[in-house]
């Protein structure tokens, strides 16, 4: 799709007027105007001393980025599976939830015998490992049982399967763990305080969350681009048949992909525990959809895109309502948080149909 209008017939793009394009242009312009007016309104409010204080804005932004980086980690799993198998694994949110849920058992046990407070770092590490192992196992099991028999099926089939898996895992956990919401023990005191970064106080847990996300992302990037398994993964993503011909065990590589995606979801599970503490069997649902949105926002199949998409989505939904909608004079804006997130997705896709970092495929790939 061309994003430019060229009215003169000689330099002919899609010069012929087309009302779909017209409508999309209308949307783009309307959105831009709304955003500009809203932001100006908010700035005006801020200047008038209304609306959130500077400190509140700071907290909001930091919190949005940390939530967003958690989305990003989950989104990586969507993106990796999409890259390799070409379908959206709706059950990935449940993979994330399982890590958080089982991690809770270890955290509760550690808390009950006092280890949590005496050795917070080791405790967090233990929870991290438990969450990662659980999520990895769940992801691999799902692949084995539900997706492997579907290799080669039209892509709608595994997608629907993943919806089924998602229900199944959710309600299995509801049955196993009960439906009540449970809470992780409060973050150890060493973490709950503020840390000064360049003179700006930032909540320790949020900083840790962002740090863990960055480290995981770098580790994953190294794994995918610099190791043999990583290049095998990319090869399988591009052409399973040929990868198999080169001696790559395609099934094993796919399992690896699920495992790595699961492990990242497990890390996200720990981050969830640090950020929100409360867990129930539906914990994976909304973050799952958000992460999926983030993956698409960044350009699905693209790993840096997933991370970027996650952080941006966190910012859109966290800061967006306050920054744009409040400025437009809409009441109770944070209620519209999720609507803003999805609207942002629609807008981004209208501007860039392949997502932010999604590749525009060349003619060879397309036709």
């Amino acid at each position, binding site marked *: 799709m061309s994003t430019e209008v060229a009215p003169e017939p000689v330099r*002919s*793009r*899609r010069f*012929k007027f087309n009302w779909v394009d017209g409508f999309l242009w209308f949307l783009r312009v309307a959105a831009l105007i709304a955003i500009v007016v809203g932001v100006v309104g908010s700035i005006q409010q801020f200047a008038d001393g209304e609306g959130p204080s500077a400190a509140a804005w700071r907290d909001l932004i930091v919190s949005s980025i940390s939530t967003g980086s958690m989305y990003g980690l989950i989104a990586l799993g969507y993106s990796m599976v999409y890259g390799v198998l070409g379908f959206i694994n709706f059950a990935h949110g449940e993979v994330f939830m399982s890590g958080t849920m089982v991690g809770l058992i270890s955290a509760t046990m550690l808390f009950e015998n006092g280890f949590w407070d005496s050795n917070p770092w080791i405790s967090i590490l233990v929870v991290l490992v438990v969450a990662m192992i659980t999520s990895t196992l769940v992801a691999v099991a799902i692949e084995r049982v539900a997706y492997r028999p579907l290799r080669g099926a039209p892509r709608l089939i595994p997608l629907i399967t993943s919806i089924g898996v998602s229900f199944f895992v959710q309600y299995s956990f509801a049955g196993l763990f009960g439906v009540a919401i449970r809470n992780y023990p409060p973050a150890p005191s060493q973490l709950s305080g503020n840390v000064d970064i360049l003179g700006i106080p930032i909540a320790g847990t949020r900083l840790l969350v962002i740090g863990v996300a960055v480290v995981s992302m770098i580790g994953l990037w190294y794994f995918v681009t610099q190791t043999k398994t990583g290049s095998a993964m990319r090869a399988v993503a591009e052409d399973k048949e040929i990868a198999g011909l080169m001696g790559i065990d395609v099934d094993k590589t796919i399992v690896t992909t699920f495992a790595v995606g699961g492990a990242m979801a497990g890390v996200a599970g720990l981050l969830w525990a640090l950020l929100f503490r409360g867990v129930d069997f539906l914990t994976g649902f909304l973050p799952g959809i958000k992460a999926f949105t983030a993956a698409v926002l960044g350009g699905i199949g693209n790993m840096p895109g997933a991370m970027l998409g996650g952080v941006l989505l966190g910012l859109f939904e966290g800061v967006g309502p306050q920054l744009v909608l409040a400025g437009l004079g809409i009441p109770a804006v944070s209620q519209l948080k999720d609507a803003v997130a999805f609207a942002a997705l629609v807008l981004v896709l209208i501007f860039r149909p392949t997502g932010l970092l999604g590749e525009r495929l060349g*003619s060879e790939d397309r036709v």
Partner: protein
Amino acid sequence: MPLLEIRGLEKQFGGIKALGGVDFHIDEGEIVSVIGPNGAGKTSFFNVISGMFPPDDGTIVFDGDNVAGHLPNEITKRGIARTFQNVRLFPNLTVLENVMVGQHCRTKQGIWGTIFQTKAQREEEQMIEDNAKEVLSFFGTRLAGYRHDQPAFVLSYANRRRLEIARAMATEPRLILLDEPTAGMNPKETVELTELIGKLRSDRGLTVVIIEHDMKVVKNVSDRVVVLDHGVKIAEGDYDTVSTNEDVIEAYLGRPHGEAGDDEESEYE
């Protein structure tokens, strides 16, 4: 006035110039072959003409109107039909349905007619079916009889190529673009198809542009041959002129065995 006249056609994909200012024309009733090495931009050329991609620059004047930048369905409606290099049928539709759907742009019954089963709608459906059968009969017994109700995916490779041509014919085009119609066919089938292409012109009055690697086919069917390389036209003329053109030999045909120079480098460029 030529049926199709193209000037300065340009198209880039991610920094790679697929078409670098191609001029081209074809008169009503002509059969022109487009040849060139792999990756020379032949298929991109078809894609741009048929509207799959808008050109970056240039004009495509078909029957007096510039159609550059129009949507593919609009271009098809104006009378340019095409087939695809790697055969793209609707595999789960029956043979007959594949052809019937080709007449979409020549028919007009909408949702109301469909829901209320108006007389006009019923007549049109009948007409679509009759036309489709008529088009299929063009291929003799190959796609006739029980084949009508078979899903397209059970067809043999050659029959799929034929069906794709039939589907293109059903759009009632004036110009038909055939992308490697004989690829993957055995010599017998190739000969048969070559004759068929001739019949497209003689029986159906179609103008044909064809991309082909099989030089026998090119020699047999074309009035004129256009050679593309790196998105640029490097030669044009009748078969004999083109096939002896040094640039064409260098870029595309290669020298017959034994004639190759000793210069290894040049051989593998």
